[in-house]
């Protein structure tokens, strides 16, 4: 009989040998910062809007944000490349070991950092551990007046107050695609499905796919552009590569 210890939910892989499963390549050179990914993500994943006061106070719930900085001063001022920032689905995630309730666990099957909403007690420790600052917390029960709830995605849990959440790489789409492929007796093909942000991106700046398959588009692009990973020096083994642009 299997026991908890067989589950490997906190198994740690430290070395360079780590290969993820799902990953992304983000081309910052073509990202126009248009926010379509933010909107698409919110619509797909039932993310609430928080209103002017809370959003101004740093409580926006978006799972993906687009960062930009300034370099230099007028007239030599330059806007840095837009940088979409979401959960990097680290292979060795700092958020995972710190959760006392196992609400933030590593999926060995999908190689994703899961956030199990119904197990979360809201210590917010994971968010402090995350060096990418991509976790958002349900500070309140944000209201979505009728009939807005009609557009809730039934495949995604609607979170209530006191629960941490973050980008899931649209795990509902992964499951759907895998289920469909399995029912047809085949493997999921590269590009058969993608995440909401990658699907909507007008510049195709985001590419999603299998990073453990060297033939996949995302692997090819990562290789071609020599994608770099954010804060790699922390040993987080992130699964998103960026091309910072010229």
């Amino acid at each position, binding site marked *: *009989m*299997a026991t908890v210890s*067989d*589950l*490997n*939910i906190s198994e740690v892989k430290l070395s360079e040998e780590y290969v993820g499963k799902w990953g992304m390549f983000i081309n910052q050179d073509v990202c126009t910062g248009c926010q379509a990914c933010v909107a698409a993500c919110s619509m797909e994943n039932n993310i609430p809007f928080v209103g002017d006061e809370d959003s101004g106070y740093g409580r926006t719930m978006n799972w993906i944000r687009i960062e930009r900085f300034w370099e230099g001063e007028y007239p030599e001022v330059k806007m840095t490349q837009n940088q979409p920032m979401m959960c990097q689905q680290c292979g060795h995630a700092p958020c995972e070991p710190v959760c006392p309730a*196992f609400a933030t*666990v590593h*999926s*060995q*099957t*999908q190689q*994703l950092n*899961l956030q*199990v*909403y*119904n*197990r979360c007690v809201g210590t917010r420790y994971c968010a402090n551990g995350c060096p990418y600052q991509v976790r958002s917390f349900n500070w309140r029960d944000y209201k979505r007046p009728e009939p807005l709830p009609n557009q809730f995605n039934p*495949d*995604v*849990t*609607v979170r209530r107050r006191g629960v941490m959440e973050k980008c*899931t790489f649209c*795990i*509902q789409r992964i*499951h759907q695609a895998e*289920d469909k492929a*399995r*029912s047809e007796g085949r493997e999921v093909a590269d590009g058969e499905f993608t995440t909401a942000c990658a699907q909507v991106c007008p510049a195709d700046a985001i590419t999603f796919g299998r990073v453990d398959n060297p033939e996949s588009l995302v692997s090819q692009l990562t290789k071609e552009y020599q994608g770099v990973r954010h804060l790699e020096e922390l040993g987080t083994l992130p699964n998103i590569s960026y091309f910072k642009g010229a």
Partner: protein
Amino acid sequence: MIKRLFDWLKQPLGLVAVGIVFLAVFSAAVYGIALTQKAPDQPIQFPHNKHVGFGIQCLYCHPGASKGPNAGLPSQAKCWACHNQIARTQTSELLAPLKNAVESGTPIQWVPVAQVPDFVQFNHRAHIAAGKNCEDCHGDMTKVTVAENPQVFNMGFCLDCHVKTAGEDKVLLNKLADCGTCHY
């Protein structure tokens, strides 16, 4: 003040009052618990046992189970396809709601009993494909009249079966007992 209250409570009448209050709270609790365990009222006293007894397959009325996440409720048209050929349908009092619903074109408001919480993403198809039979979870419908749920679908129930299915296969276990298999 408090002393007077205690004194009053110590006399026989007071004790009776305390007893009544205790009983009331206790029975209310029991009643509340019982309420949650009771099968809900259905618009039609639908006898599953009869339909299964006629040899109708589960998937005939709930075809979604083999195709996707939801088993689904049969459309009224499907009920009517058989029932309008049965003479009793026109006369039976028990079937009057069906007849009315079909004739007036109002949907019947069923109350599903086999439910999982919102934060569980359940997919019928995968379970059917894995060779599970309906009765493995929903019980023997030949013995059920008005729909009721034979077991509480809690995580222990699901996980028990998942772990058993995985057996010694560690890879399968990690897949079947992965939090992200059901919760996202």
